[in-house]
């Protein structure tokens, strides 16, 4: 009686274990396939990344940026950086004090108020004359003349 029970139980266990091992084996193979797939995906992403980096470098090459800056000179007015573009902090004007609403502060008073500050070539205030920025002169070959 007891013996029969043990036999039956062990046979059932063997079947269950075989089933488990079989399933694990398949799981393992599926996982390793998954890993291989992921690895090849990572590799493909890496290649994409390096391609994008190359493209980024190509689009940002100095020649192209220079040509773009020249083509859009009228809108952006980008010039090569020069020694004259440097200034010390003291040279930067504080923003003018907020006008006392509703009476706007006349420009003369503003000038007096910031007398000690070097104003380089800007006049602040709503009543300052608009400055005309001349469009760049282009030579026949498209070369920009100073």
């Amino acid at each position, binding site marked *: 009686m007891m013996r029969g029970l043990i036999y039956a139980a062990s046979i059932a266990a063997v079947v269950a274990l075989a089933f488990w091992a079989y399933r694990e084996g398949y799981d393992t193979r599926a996982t390793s396939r998954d890993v291989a797939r992921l690895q090849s995906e990572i590799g493909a992403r890496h*290649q994409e990344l390096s391609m994008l980096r*190359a493209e980024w470098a190509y689009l940002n090459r*100095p020649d192209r940026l220079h040509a773009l800056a020249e083509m859009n000179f009228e809108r952006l007015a980008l010039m090569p950086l020069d020694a004259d573009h440097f200034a010390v902090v003291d040279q930067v004007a504080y923003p003018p004090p907020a006008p006392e609403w509703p009476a706007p502060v006349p420009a003369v008073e503003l000038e007096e108020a910031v007398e000690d500050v070097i104003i380089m070539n800007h006049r602040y205030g709503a009543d300052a004359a608009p400055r005309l920025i001349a469009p760049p002169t282009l030579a026949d070959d498209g070369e920009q003349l100073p």
Partner: protein
Amino acid sequence: MIRLPFWPRRRPLATDPFVPVAPRVPRAPEPAPVAPREAPERIRARAERRMKFTAACFVFGFALVGVKMGAISASEAREPSTGSLSGASIVSDRADITDRNGRVLATNVDATALYAQPHLMVDARAAAEGLARIFPDMDAETWHRRFTSGSKFFWLKGNISPEQKQAVHDLGEPGLLFGQREMRLYPNGPLAAHILGGARYGEQDVRAAEIKGIAGVEATFNEFLRDPAQEGAPLRLSIDLSVQSAVERVLEGGMALMNAKGAAAILMDIHTGEIRALASVPDFDPNDRPAPAVEGDPGDSPLFNRAVQGVYELGSTFKIFTAAQSLELGLTNAGTMIDTTGPLRQGRHRIRDFRNYGPELSVTDVIVKSSNVGTARMALDIGAARQQDFLRSLGFFEPTAIELTEAPGARPLIPARWPDISTMTISYGHGLSASPLHLAVGYASVLNGGTRVEPTLLARATPPAPGTRVVSERVSAQARHMLRQVVMRGTASLGEVSGYQVGGKTGTADKPKYTGGYWDDKVITTFASVFPADDPQYVLVVTLDEPQIEAAGEQRRTAGWTAVPVASEVVRRATPLLGLRPDFNPAADSFASYLAESGNR
């Protein structure tokens, strides 16, 4: 008697129960004598053996698991490879090259190669004609002959575009196949072409191809770039892409303006020797590197790197070395008057100045006015042996140590014998030929405070220890002050850039003929400069090959009219990019400020 089980059992007779009955059934035989018990020691030994065997099995099993786990944890994580390239035996992954700010100068992209297997072809003639239509450089007849020749494999194209690939695909020919590989791409085109050099395919396979550097840093660092142990870490160069671009642009413009046939420029950090920009025009596109010239002067080829390979007589730029050595030896000081009455006779040679500068000039004015006679007299006082030692200490006797394959070949041309006339002419830069890079290294070494620098193209993480001392701090400051005055009131007055105290020396040397002697109307002009002169940061050398301009009513070929304006434009453009603040304080030009700056370091 044998009793069979199915026979009926006889009834036992009623007998006297006390009478012993002879047994009918034979008694069980006497049990055999039991073998004597084994000695317990042996049993224990056997059990112990078994236990040990079992334990050994377990230990072995666990050890196996442990070893495997150790192996897994100790092995390096491998970069996943693309499925198609895994298993390719040729190493195809090559590290990027970047500038000092990490901007890409060279990288790899996927490419497609085209090959043919004629035994798989359906119609060789149609294939050859189709290929000739797609690729204009392929001849239908030639390729038809090759496809029918019996060979089983041909490389057709190393690198085709996606459009070409689609066109070949549309031919529908099973014998035309595509190989996968990587291709070296230089996204900035011809920028820094001479530094990068170029690459080509080495061993080829249909699944991958090996990329090999053939010139420049690509060749010098070939092993580093393809070393898998670096895990793809890029090679970081010392050059700055925007500075290099500005320098090349100015140099190309300057070469055209000055009607020169070539130009070179080197911008170098004066303290570390890091090269921020190195340009030579005409240049080429490393993506499509031209074949080396087989005829004509190799010096005229775009592949020729004038800054490193070009060995020229550098003219009066050498005078500052003579003056610095004279000061260092204590033979003169900046105010000592030198006899400049010319011409100076030495044997059958006569040395004269560009113009007569009067009977005598101070050492500073000899440099400022560029007097050959005065410099030659100073050199005679120094003597040939000491002059050679000094120039050797500045590196003028050896090829430069820069990391380019071309560099070891550029050995300076030094006279075999060194008579007094050589001492005299070399003091003002004639009779000794060196590359502009040698000159840059010499200037950096003398002017940075007096320690030798080694040029390098690699970005340095930490500043190197100062090299051996060539001149004292004070002499270095005096030399810079003299060079500053050359720009302020001497031959290089066009070199002034307001805000940046440029100091420098011009040099104009006649070009030697191949047949001997010198051309009358062909010169190499050089401007070697340092800026800011009071607190030196960079050395710039600009060289123009055969410049000639019409200026102020006459033909001009001297460096002051040709190389100097180009160099000053380079300084103007490059300094803000290098992050140098301009200093408009006129006190910066006083000698006291030079000494103070050298004392601060």
